[in-house]
């Protein structure tokens, strides 16, 4: 439970990060003594000094893609999204992991920090430069950005994997149970989605990487879970609250539930559908509404899920199905889920299309559909989320290494983390995972992506590498 006091503290913490970002942005344009900069500094001091006074010191830390103040993660708010992203990028550029503010900070302390910060931006060894300049101030201390420990990551990956398979297993169970007329537990669905929401908030990239592993034999169940994860991840980028994300995750998990009514043989038909078969397939949104409403009584979450089940193929411009007599704007969730649905469907192997599209091709095609089939604004956020090189992309590096994109970088979208699968000598390997933002002493990137290849063309089993 969040008390009013806590809410106010969180807001103050967001304000501090935002204001620091404002100072740094302003200082990049103006002289430190310019009134725009000094006013921004004064406002920052008004925010930070009371906090320091209460706790003796205040630590601003960057962990992964998130800021923490005194150990508490500060959630992104839509209002400050751009400034937060700016600060993450600038901290990473300078390899700053944390800034500790002690005692009462003065405008001069901040000016020293600004000087250090700006000079470091031009240095080949930014962190060293900033450390050197910061020696002038004993009230602001900086620390280097920590690398993620491999061991920690393995454990987290295990937990994420467990969550993912629990969800797939649940999704399979639901469909089987509905078919056999058994009772389905929605409580379980909620729990599963809640866990996914928590993990999206903490380890977005790891859970997203699970969606890149496609299981041809269990497509239907994996698809439901993948769409749920992709939708929640997009929802998180849009700044939705945890509770709303759960609602979105549930709606996405059940979006295709109407397919249980489609005969198995038809769903698995390897050839093209004839008109009658299409007619039947196109009924699944209507069947989905009924299936969801039968599962449980009316409540906000059920209603939302039913709406999404009905609308997810209608298209932004209503050219899809089912056709309706009167158009009313598609539900916000429906527009999110239809993006996630298209992306996952395109990048998965299907009975009638054994070779799936590569993630980048799918995104290109989706961009062509922007404003017609898909909501252009939400698609923009989605593309920003999955990145230039989505997880599972096969990439050739300028170091003559071949790798799979393992994790996107929220700030440097063209510099993801890559799992090397063939080393520079042409030997097959499994690892290491390299971070493309790493630089040598001269400030040059150690590795860059040269080319992107289609992993499906070479029948690369992503599960072998990503699981």
């Amino acid at each position, binding site marked *: *439970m969040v008390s009013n006091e806590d809410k106010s503290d969180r807001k103050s913490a967001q304000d501090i990060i935002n204001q620091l970002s404002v100072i740094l942005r302003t200082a990049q344009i103006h002289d430190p003594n310019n009134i725009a900069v000094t006013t921004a500094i004064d406002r920052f001091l008004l925010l930070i000094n009371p906090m320091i006074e209460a706790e003796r010191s205040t630590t601003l830390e960057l962990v992964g893609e998130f800021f923490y103040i005194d150990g508490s993660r500060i959630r992104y708010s839509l*209002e400050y*999204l*751009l400034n937060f992203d700016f600060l993450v990028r600038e901290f990473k550029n300078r390899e700053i992991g944390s800034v500790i503010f002690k005692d009462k900070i003065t405008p001069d302390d901040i000016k020293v920090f600004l000087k250090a910060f700006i000079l470091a931006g031009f240095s080949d060894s930014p962190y060293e430069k900033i450390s050197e300049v910061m020696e002038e101030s004993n009230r602001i201390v900086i620390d280097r950005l920590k690398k993620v420990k491999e061991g920690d990551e393995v454990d987290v990956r295990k937990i994420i*994997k*467990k969550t993912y*398979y629990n969800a*797939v*297993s*649940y999704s*399979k*169970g639901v469909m089987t149970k509905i078919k056999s007329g058994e009772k389905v537990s*929605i*409580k379980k669905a*909620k*729990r599963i989605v*809640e866990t996914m929401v*928590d993990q999206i908030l903490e380890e977005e990239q790891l859970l997203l990487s699970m969606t890149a592993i496609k*299981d041809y034999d269990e497509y239907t169940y994996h698809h439901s879970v993948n769409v749920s994860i992709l939708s929640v991840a997009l929802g998180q980028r*849009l*700044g939705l609250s*945890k509770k709303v994300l759960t609602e979105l995750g549930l709606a996405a998990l059940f979006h295709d539930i109407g397919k249980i009514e489609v005969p198995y043989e038809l769903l698995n038909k390897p050839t093209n559908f004839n008109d009658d078969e299409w007619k039947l397939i196109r009924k699944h949104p*209507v069947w989905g*509404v*009924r299936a969801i*409403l039968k599962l449980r*009584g*009316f409540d906000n979450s059920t*209603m*939302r899920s039913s709406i999404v089940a009905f609308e997810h193929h209608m298209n932004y411009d209503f050219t899809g199905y*089912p056709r309706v*007599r009167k158009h009313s704007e598609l*539900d*916000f969730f429906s527009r999110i889920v239809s993006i996630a649905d298209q992306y996952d469907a395109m990048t998965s192997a299907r009975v009638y299309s054994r070779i799936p599209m590569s993630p*980048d091709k799918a995104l*290109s095609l989706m961009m062509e559909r922007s404003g017609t089939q898909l909501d252009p*604004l939400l698609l*923009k*956020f989605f*593309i920003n989320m999955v*990145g*230039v*090189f989505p997880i599972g992309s*096969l990439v050739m590096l300028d170091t003559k290494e*071949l790798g799979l994109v393992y994790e996107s970088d929220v700030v440097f*979208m*063209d510099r993801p983390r890559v799992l090397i699968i*063939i080393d520079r000598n042409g030997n*097959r390997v499994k690892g290491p995972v390299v971070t493309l933002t790493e630089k040598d002493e001269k400030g040059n990137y150690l590795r860059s992506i*040269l*080319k992107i*290849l*289609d*992993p499906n063309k*070479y029948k*690369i*089993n992503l*599960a*072998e590498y990503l*699981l």
Partner: protein
Amino acid sequence: MEQIEGIKEARDILQAIVKGKKTFRMYPQNNPIYVKTLEDSYAKFRDFFDYKEKFVLQIKHNSISYDSEQIYYSDEKEDNLALFFFKDGLRELTFKKGLLQEELEEFFKIVAMDFDREVVDDDIVTLLWEKDFQNIQYVVDEAVLVDLDEEDYETKAEEELKEKVSDVDELMKAYAEGFKEEDVKGTSIVPITEKDLKMLEREMEKDSSNRIEKLADILFEIIYQSESKSDFEDTFPFLKDSIKFSMKQGNVYIVLDIMTKTKEVIDDPLFPEDSKKYMRKLILYAGTDEIIGLLAGLLDGGVEIEEKVFEGFIESLDKNAITPFVKFLGELKTIHARKSVIESLIFIGKKDIQALARGLDDQRWFVVRNIIYILRKIGDKRAIEYLLKTVKHGDIRVRKEVIRALGELGGREVIQSLRECLDDLDVQVRIAAVKAFGIIGSEVSKKIILEKISDKMFKERNFEEKKEFYEVLSKWKDEEIINFLMKVLKKKTFFGRAKNYENRACAAFGLGLLGYKEALPILNKYKNSNNKNLREYSYIAIKRIEHGQ
């Protein structure tokens, strides 16, 4: 020693949780026991946190431990706190220093819920998760989410997926082609701008619109797309649910929307008759006890319902709604709610007078009186046969109302009953009856009143009653009445002079009401009478005749 002390305090806290669970289930928030339990429990936590940073409980099937020491054990199936937590997968519960009393209260509220009996869609873990406590943390075992036969799903699925090892040759081919293949560019990222964020904000604001309205629209789309009777059968219950849900939420306008759309379907000549049957059932459903009961609750709770919407909804109902409305009329607590229901019954009661009249058998006098009022307002003469049965009702207020109603409805059949009422033991009934005759205004009525006033016993009645009779009589502005009144006004007696003066005063009053100018000389004479009543009413009559007052 310190550890033993810690364990003792841990036990105390656990007992406080057990007590809190029970108390919060039994008492409302404003009850002193509720408040004391919360404060005492919080004090125990506060004392504990004086020397410890956190209070961690390990949960097993039948036991709860603190610091590896079992502090709770129960093998009961019910009232077992360990099992209560354990069954939803909760394995560890931590209360951190800094715990707020509000947090503890919310925690107690969650654990006090009767998950077996109450219709709760969430389990304890979900409820804790939704609260997002800052100082209460928990560890759960997600294994409870997996069905027993799917326990090793992850292992199997992973093994199967990994079996399909990537072909080394293909991999090497990819590597080789990586040098040759033309550049394939990644998707170009268009950065998010301030304008995008503003647009998104607007979209999210719009998103709070009512879902049930949209779902109802979807259900009607499904209805229109239905191809068979079974399609209707399947969708029909959800439309019912939509009505119920909307009414529960106080969204009467959505119920009205559903009713309007239902009528459109019924009126659509292209719709199969078989399917219209379901739509008619839906209209009937809106008038059931269940739905009208919810509406009554809204009215009693003071929920604002737009007048047009309310009227529209009532108009859309069928006659089956009459009985539930009558039922709730007797149960409503507020005047505003009763007024609304009465107005509703005036509207739909016309559809079935007999059903409405059944309310006259209600044991509660005020319900009967309200029904009579409604029947009177409807003004359908078919109501008379039912109303006549209540003329002898045990409650005077009911009798007065029914007499008035009979008067307004009129007709031969009411005369006898009203006539009998003129001789009732209760003066109020007698006055009501004479007024009713006045409303009827027929020659028969006039004759009955004249006959009653002329009766030698009439003068014995009290002055106020007599005055009412004369007042009614003066509604007939004809010669017969004028002559009669003039005769009474002039009449002198030796015996019973006081009562006679009362009659003469009433006659003067009546002539005044009639505005009979020819009576002025005699009235002027009597305005100086020694009798107070005659003097006063002659004066009043003169003023009325001269000034039309």
